[in-house]
């Protein structure tokens, strides 16, 4: 458990560093929400200064950081000046939407990648492997953005899928089954884009990891003992190949969240991405800071989870690390 404690401490330290740095950066940024009124003849400079003082922007820096941090720990992310409402409730629905998207995409991408990667690794040099390698290379070269817009084009032209949003009108009046179906219908295209972007990367890694274990002496001896092929692949080789894949799971989260931001903006999915972009454009730093902190939390938690899972499943790490 010492290992877990150390990883936890490391993650917490990272988050504190991110919070200090992003807070400082937001302070040195030229202009704030009020600077849009600077040239406005209807609002005097004194009014703007008074508004600034009222929102607490005139206090010394460490005090403001302390107040901000204390608020976050209480679940209060400050006040959005552009939305004229506290940030926390704004974020709540957006977080759910983004996590729904990325969670489903991760699940489906792995469900595709593991069998395909294994299948491809057992057929190196044959047409099946070549086809899958060529397909993954091609898919890797297609930007998520282009995929998103192409699928949007499909949705517009055929009318099979909605062209944005998370739920149909009258969603709240539907029964639970219908709600689920409606949600799935709206999610289908954004998730498809993310899966098509993520799965090729995963397939390549699964294939590489499996190739390495297929060559290992223990695999040869297991095969010589006549263990059936499927059992050999899934019970003996896959767990041994899992190590790099679990850490990949943590690392790919960052790429996935970035891709998700683009897809959300391109396809009109009401997640964190559009909110973040609007906040950047409006210089609404309370929201910018909140989203930055949240994305850091997601990433740190993802990596932490990967570390802990790795520690659980891979005895090699336990022996090295005590």
């Amino acid at each position, binding site marked *: 458990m010492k290992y877990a404690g150390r990883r936890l401490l490391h993650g917490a330290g990272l988050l504190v560093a991110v919070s200090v740095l992003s807070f400082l950066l937001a302070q*040195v940024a030229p202009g704030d929400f009020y600077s849009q009124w600077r040239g406005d003849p209807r609002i005097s400079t004194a009014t703007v200064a008074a508004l600034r003082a009222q929102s607490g922007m005139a206090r010394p820096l460490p005090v403001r950081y302390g107040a901000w941090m204390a608020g976050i720990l209480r679940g209060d992310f400050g006040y959005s000046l552009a939305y004229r409402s506290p940030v926390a409730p704004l974020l709540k629905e957006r977080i759910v939407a983004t996590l729904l998207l990325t969670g489903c995409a991760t699940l489906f991408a792995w469900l595709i990648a593991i069998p395909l990667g294994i299948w491809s690794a057992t057929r190196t040099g044959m047409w099946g492997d070549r086809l899958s390698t060529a397909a993954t290379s091609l898919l890797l070269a297609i930007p998520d953005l282009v995929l998103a817009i192409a699928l949007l084009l499909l949705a517009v032209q055929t009318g099979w899928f909605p062209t944005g949003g998370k739920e149909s009108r009258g969603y709240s009046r539907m029964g639970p089954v219908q709600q689920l179906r409606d949600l799935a219908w709206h999610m289908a295209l954004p998730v498809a884009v993310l899966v098509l972007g993520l799965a090729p990367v995963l397939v390549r890694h699964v294939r590489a990891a499996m190739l390495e274990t297929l060559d290992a002496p223990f695999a040869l001896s297991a095969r010589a003992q006549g263990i059936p092929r499927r059992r050999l692949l899934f019970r003996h080789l896959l767990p041994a190949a899992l190590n790099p894949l679990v850490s990949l799971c943590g690392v790919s989260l960052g790429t996935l969240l970035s891709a998700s931001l683009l897809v959300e903006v391109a396809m009109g999915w009401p997640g964190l991405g559009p909110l973040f972009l609007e906040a*950047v454009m409006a210089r609404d730093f309370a929201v910018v800071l909140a989203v930055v902190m949240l994305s*850091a939390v997601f990433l740190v938690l993802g990596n932490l989870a990967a570390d802990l899972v790795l520690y659980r499943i891979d005895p090699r790490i336990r022996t090295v690390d005590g």
Partner: protein
Amino acid sequence: MKRRCGFLAVVLAPLLLAGFLAPYPYAEQHREHPYVPPTAVHFIRARPFVQEDGHLYPLRLFPGNGRLFGVDPPAVVFLLGSDAYGRDVFSRLLYGGRLSLATGLLATLLSLALGLAAGVVAGYFGGWWDGLLMRGGELAMALPWLYLLLAVRAVLPLHISTLDSFLVSTAIIGAVGWVRPARLIRGVVLSGKERGFVLAARGFGAGHGYLIRRHLLPLTAGVAGTQATLLIPQFMLAEMALSFLGLGVGEPVPSWGGMLNEARQYHALLLHGWLLAPGLAAIPVLLAFLLVADAWLFRRSE
């Protein structure tokens, strides 16, 4: 490997020659021709013509304005159609690609330079420097890259001139991407430091500067090269993302991301499918870089 490099050259050449291949300047507007579908080129006795108001105009090679082809004024030639202001999508696509490529290359240079500096210092001097630089790297990796990019962009002024915004987005993309090359180079330097010839040179009294310049930097060339082929397409994608989100170079300068943003409008999707062209143009370019990077990695691993 040779074939793949050839493919890359073929794909990049049109972008580099944009000023010659594009029939129009990127900002030239033909207000009377908004959203024109791709111009049909008629071949009559093996010579190309373009139709305009019922008249045929010859499509001329080297029309004398320093460009490869064009037609005389009342007629227009839009190989990939035109956008809302009647600007030639084909010309804008080429110029936009050149911009993406320039961003990718410059940002890669910057991040390799930063990565080399950080990696060599961390690996060679170790100790305090190593800790500081690698913790800094972890900090930079603690955010998803696009969130980091937007957060840094948020700090800088929004409304700036085209050249400034080009430089700003290049600098941000390059500065954000230094961590991975730095870590790899640090590893190379760490193991290279203990190699026999480096120890021997040190035994003869070679200074830090000499050792780094003469022995350690050449060792990192392979890693730096592979990283470059991997980073250039990534950074081109990052540029596309930024300009798509409206934070890259602005109008009237074309960029693939900005053009895609226009294509995303509902009516554009429904009626003007050719606006998707810049997105499709990105695919062979990225694929070429990917193939070269793959071949390079494969060769190094053997």
